[in-house]
């Protein structure tokens, strides 16, 4: 349907006003507003958890909004499925690629709308030719016949982009499309985005990289804590202004890491390698120290942590706790050596969600509690009570099921469970993901206290303010390698971001300079 995206009718292509969406008790989006016109590239920025992805998923038809106005091309719409959103001319590139690993690259692009020949049979030759043409436009060479399995994250992202472009959509939403791309690929993507804009289409671009936002976009909308903050023309604003609006508070207030006495080396990792995942990873963590593993999603941070804890095997290197080698591939050995691991997905990997708080807290130390092989609820309660008290787990009773609690309290239960093992090293993966702002600060204070008591902490986090506020030292991971080891003083948003995107070779460019380049 050529021409349907043409602007000039007066209405914006996309109009969202005061859109709300809750998941259970958690309000992911309180009042989202976004108005995008044809012929414009509109940036949507905000911290992780500001509600951008939820907004995108409402536009895409993945979620249905609870309230608010949603208009597309001037008509009120309410998409019940992604198919509906697609049929209306909306293409979405999600943050994490969603591909079919068993199918060919070309089929991944055209699934559901493959070119047909006589008798409604799929015209493979044309499908391959069109894929190749799309890749040529993006300036890459990917064999359209190969299976999607085994493609690098960057290549997967390029296939997502090719897929979205081939949809010929009136609105193209890109949720952090550049996170895994190299400089050349980003340039190519931007060239394509500009040409789509010049055709009169509307584009929404979500990114944490301000240089890209200022390079590509003409308008910017800021969101914070699930609500709309402001919309400005890029020319009328600056990075500092946007950052201030995004954060809306002093970073130091939010993340109160108190200085702790740094003790002896607790964890030594030497030359750790898992082929194709991470390489030559070496670092130390000392008692009382919080070391952050920063980097982009998919850089290999969680994989490193899982290998250290023994969930995954590694091909080379070694892990030492207090000078003694930890047997690889055995979580039990890691627990015995004093390592505790709070995984990213607490509902799936950290908690028995249907079990009581007491059972969850006592689950790792159960072996020490039983008497003649029997374990009573009373023993579990007795073991759990002090920890639940110390972490201020808000629960009516230790018998309450963990599933009824808020995300922040669930996280505390998982922490309590591991602290009951009296570890020397605590690894936490995204400790505050999906937790509301108030509880976040509590989790941070807790981690800070624990470090103060001499616990060594490795914290994986994708939230830059959290990393900068909490960490004594920042290790930046890029494509499976540690590309920077920054002290608290050296760690700035720029230095971490440069190392995380693999552009650290040059001297860090101050934010002000970059704005001048743009102007």
């Amino acid at each position: 349907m050529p021409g349907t995206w043409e602007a000039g009718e007066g209405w914006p292509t996309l109009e969202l006003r005061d859109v709300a969406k809750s998941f259970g008790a958690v309000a992911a989006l309180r009042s989202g507003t976004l108005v995008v016109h044809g012929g414009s590239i509109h940036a949507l920025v905000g911290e992780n958890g500001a509600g951008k992805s939820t907004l995108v998923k409402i536009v895409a038809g993945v979620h249905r909004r609870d309230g608010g106005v949603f208009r597309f091309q001037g008509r009120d719409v309410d998409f019940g499925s992604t198919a509906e959103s697609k049929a209306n001319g909306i293409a979405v590139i999600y943050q994490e690629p969603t591909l079919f690993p068993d199918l060919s690259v070309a089929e991944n692009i055209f699934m559901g709308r493959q070119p047909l020949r006589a008798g409604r049979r799929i015209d493979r030759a044309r499908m391959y030719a069109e894929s190749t043409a799309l890749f040529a436009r993006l300036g890459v060479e990917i064999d359209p016949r190969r299976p999607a399995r085994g493609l690098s994250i960057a290549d997967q992202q390029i296939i997502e982009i090719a897929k979205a472009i081939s949809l010929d959509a009136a609105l193209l939403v890109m949720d952090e499309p550049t996170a895994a791309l190299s400089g050349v690929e980003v340039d190519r993507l931007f060239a394509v985005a500009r040409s789509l804009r010049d055709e009169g289409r509307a584009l929404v671009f979500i990114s944490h990289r301000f240089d890209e936002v200022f390079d590509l976009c003409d308008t910017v909308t800021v969101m914070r804590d699930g609500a709309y903050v402001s919309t400005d023309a890029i020319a009328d604003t600056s990075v500092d202004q946007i950052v201030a609006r995004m954060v809306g508070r002093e970073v130091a207030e939010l993340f109160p890491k108190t200085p702790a006495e740094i003790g002896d080396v607790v964890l030594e990792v030497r030359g750790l390698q898992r082929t194709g995942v991470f390489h030559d990873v070496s670092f130390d963590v000392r008692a009382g120290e919080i070391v952050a593993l920063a980097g982009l999603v998919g850089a290999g941070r969680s994989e490193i942590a899982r290998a250290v804890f023994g969930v995954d095997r590694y091909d080379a290197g070694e892990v030492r706790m207090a000078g003694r080698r930890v047997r690889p591939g055995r979580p039990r050995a890691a627990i015995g050596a004093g390592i505790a691991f709070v995984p990213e997905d607490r509902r799936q990997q950290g908690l028995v969600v249907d079990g009581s708080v007491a059972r969850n807290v006592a689950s790792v130390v159960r072996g020490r509690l039983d008497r003649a092989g029997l374990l009573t609820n009373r023993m579990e309660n007795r073991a759990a009570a002090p920890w639940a008290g110390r972490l201020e787990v808000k629960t009516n009773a230790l018998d309450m099921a963990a599933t009824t609690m808020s995300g922040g309290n669930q996280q505390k239960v998982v922490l309590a469970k591991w602290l009951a093992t009296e570890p020397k090293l605590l690894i936490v993966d995204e400790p505050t993901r999906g937790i509301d702002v108030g509880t976040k600060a509590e989790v941070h204070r807790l981690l800070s206290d624990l470090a103060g008591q001499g616990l060594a902490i490795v914290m994986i986090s994708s939230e830059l303010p959290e990393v900068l506020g909490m960490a004594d030292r920042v290790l930046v991971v890029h494509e499976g390698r540690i590309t920077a080891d920054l002290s608290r003083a050296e760690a700035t948003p720029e230095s971490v971001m440069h190392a995380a995107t693999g552009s650290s070779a040059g001297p860090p460019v101050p934010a002000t300079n970059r704005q001048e380049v743009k102007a």
Partner: protein
Amino acid sequence: MSTITPDAIEVRPSALSPGRRALGTVLRSRELAVALVLVALVALTTTKSSSFLLGSDGWRSLLVNPSILIVLAVGQTVVIVTRNVDLSVGSTLGLTAYLTGRLFLDTGLPAPVVVLVAVAAGAGLGLVNGILVAFGKVPALVITLGTLYIYRGIFLSWAGSDRVNAGDIPSDFLRLGTAQVLTVPVLTIVALVVLGLVGYHLQTARSGRELYAIGSDPDAAVLYGLPVARRVLFAFMVSGALAGLAGVFYVARYGTVSSNAGLSIELQAVGAAVIGGVAIFGGSGTVWGASIGAALLVTINSALPVLGISDFWQRAVVGALILAAVVLDRVLSARQARRLAVARDVGPGHLVIEPNAGAGDKEAAR
């Protein structure tokens, strides 16, 4: 904006040459591997007893025996590629076989109508499975295990101690079980036509490819906007309809239908698909492979006695085949994943690009 230098375009490892790719496909082709095992088995057995292949009776049984299992394995494959499984096909076969017999006995309908009714009845039973799986959001393993017993129960309470005998069936229809065209039994021809139609559809129609997509990653299929529930429903209907056809085959071939008709044949159907390279977690495998797997399973059962191998070992050999197939899949996919990972690390991929090349381009463009 920025001009891309020739160096920058070569950021990706080039594809394999077409020749090597073709060779790789042949080497990795499960269909070919299983077919070779089948040929070797037939050849070996024939050297032991030449009538196994060369006798007119041997030739005929070799072709006609697998026809029922081929039809079932084709249906099973359609379901398995969507990351589901249909365990009720054995009961469906029994029920539709008995239905076929009763229709001849009680109504005197012409044979083509009887066949259509039986196939439609099978499709209806498949539809029930499909609705429960697609909308009930309960794993197919549990649903079809339940309907396996329910369908068999319906069959038992309907038939009671009654059975259909060859004498009740019109002899014209029974002749179908023995009729041949150019020495090829008619049932085999029908099975191969079904195989061809389903295989062609799965490979060349959008809805066929969508079945593979759904099995490959169900969540992604939802994000793509594919009609997941409708396709899964369709897959179970196809499986049910083919089980109904298999029930018709059963009557034509054996004439008698007792209460244990099709008992536990669903496991053979799943086994045939797995041996033929259909991934049990969906997303890959072909009906060609599954039907060669079915032919291999059936042929082993008749070949091993000729080779003088005892009954106990016959079952063990089938089990070993299934395990070997699964282990082979696992080893091959682990090796491929490793190869791809190494290729990504050492190949002229992203890591080798000068970190500042992109930034430099940007600067130059301004």
